[in-house]
């Protein structure tokens, strides 16, 4: 087959998959009210996806914060503007790095776990058994996990931002000697509510994307060991690319 034909086939396959994912999302949204009526199922999933991701999120956030603090101090000190380090760090984290890095880490830690769990349930006929028991797997298994992801990502982003600021404060104020009062007051001065809203919007959209990709890939994975492995890999790759595309799109619309 010639290269243009291969590209055309690849494009058609991607469009078909996109359409299937949108239909799957609609199916999940239809089942969300029934899933929300069972808060215990949702809280279990917030625990699995969110609480169990806290260590990786907080550790990464602290180091990301320290790096921004260090780089920010180095750049700003050349302009003798070290006092606005707090504002710079906060804007970078709240608007960009917080939502994006959290979503990428979520895809690696919780998204893979969701995809492989659901894929294994498919491979071992657990989903088929539910259907035969007159239990809709989308309502009982997929929707709670999707909602869990949509709730977890914004909450994890908030934690990431807070710990990241602390990391930058530790480096900037405690190690490099930036004035403590200036660090916090400049942050208060320059960070406006719309900056926060932008981050919240992004984290919510990324939560929907990361949750949808994970449950879609898991639910549609071929029922083999290789199939589940491939679904897990595709979850990370697709979520990462999708998050970066969505990040640019939202930023372009909001600026």
């Amino acid at each position, binding site marked *: 087959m010639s290269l243009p034909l291969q590209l055309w086939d690849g494009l058609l396959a991607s469009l078909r998959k996109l359409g299937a994912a949108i239909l799957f999302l609609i199916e999940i949204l239809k089942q969300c009210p029934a899933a929300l009526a069972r808060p215990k199922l949702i809280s279990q999933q917030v625990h699995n996806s969110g609480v169990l991701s806290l260590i990786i999120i907080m550790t990464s956030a602290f180091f990301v914060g320290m790096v921004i603090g260090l780089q920010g101090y180095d750049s700003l000190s050349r302009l003798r503007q070290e006092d606005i380090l707090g504002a710079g760090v906060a804007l970078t984290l709240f608007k960009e790095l917080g939502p994006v890095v959290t979503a990428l880490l979520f895809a690696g830690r919780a998204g893979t776990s969701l995809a492989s769990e659901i894929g*294994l349930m498919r491979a*071992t*006929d*657990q989903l*088929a*058994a539910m*259907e*035969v*028991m*007159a*239990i*809709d797997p989308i309502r*009982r298994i997929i929707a709670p996990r999707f909602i869990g992801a949509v709730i977890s990502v914004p909450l994890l982003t908030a934690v990431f931002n807070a710990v990241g600021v602390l990391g930058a404060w530790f480096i900037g104020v405690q190690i490099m000697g930036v004035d403590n009062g200036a660090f916090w007051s400049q942050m208060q001065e320059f960070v406006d509510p719309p900056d926060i809203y932008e981050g919240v919007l992004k984290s919510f959209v990324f939560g929907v994307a990361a949750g949808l990709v994970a449950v879609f890939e898991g639910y549609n994975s071929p029922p083999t060991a290789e199939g589940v492995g491939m679904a897990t890999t595709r979850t990370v790759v697709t979520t990462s690319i999708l998050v970066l595309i969505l990040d640019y799109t939202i930023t372009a619309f909001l600026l």
Partner: protein
Amino acid sequence: MTADNLVQVSGLRFGRSGRPIFSGLDLGIRRGSITAIMGPSGTGKTTLLRMITGQLRPEAGTVAVDGLDVAALSRNDLFDLRRRMGMLFQNSALLTDFDVFENVAFPVRENTRLPEELVRHLVLTKLNSVGLRGAAHLMPAELSGGMARRVAMARAMVLDPELLLYDEPFSGLDPISLGVVLRLIRMNNDALGLTSIVVSHDVAEISRIADHCFVISEGRVIASGPPRELADSPSELVRQFMTGAADGPVPFHYPAPDYAEQLFGKTR
């Protein structure tokens, strides 16, 4: 369809990846009986069970359960019908995150609003009937293959279905577990007034409990009747299947070029 038949398959056609699996399959499952569906591997026995439960749709023909065309039902009606069925999967398909008790309780909790005390009674009764009341606290990973099969059987029966479907219930079982499962299928069918469909390769075992057998090959029923009659069938294929002969209409050798020529000639 006769009123005596709980399941009626008529003119069923279905294929996968261009390969026909059923080409005009007709069969009826009598109420209250144990019916065995047998046939060589790849003849679509499990596919037939999935069509009876509405997981797959036929390309042509109908699969009717209690007079209802399964493929024509709405999703809600299909779920209502499924509440009257139970199915034992080949690999048991137990929910790996739940212990034995919760696995059996799962369909009850999801499909009814019974009080917890009644759920407990129901689950323990069913577990007792398969001899695993004492294993209620074990996780699926701690069960042997035979025990997992019995738990899955308890789960399939917990809502007292009218129709119980067994997909290869004997595969991989040791002789004791096999005997237990055989006895349970017969006992449940008679005690609860069920209709049972058992898909199996184990001709000798299934012949001991089945009231009626269908042998499927190349998309059609090639023989049917009580197990003893099938052993004397005039069809060579049926006799080969029933006696387990290695060679016959289903050849031992996959089609290949001449042996000597392949060994000493140029053919690879």
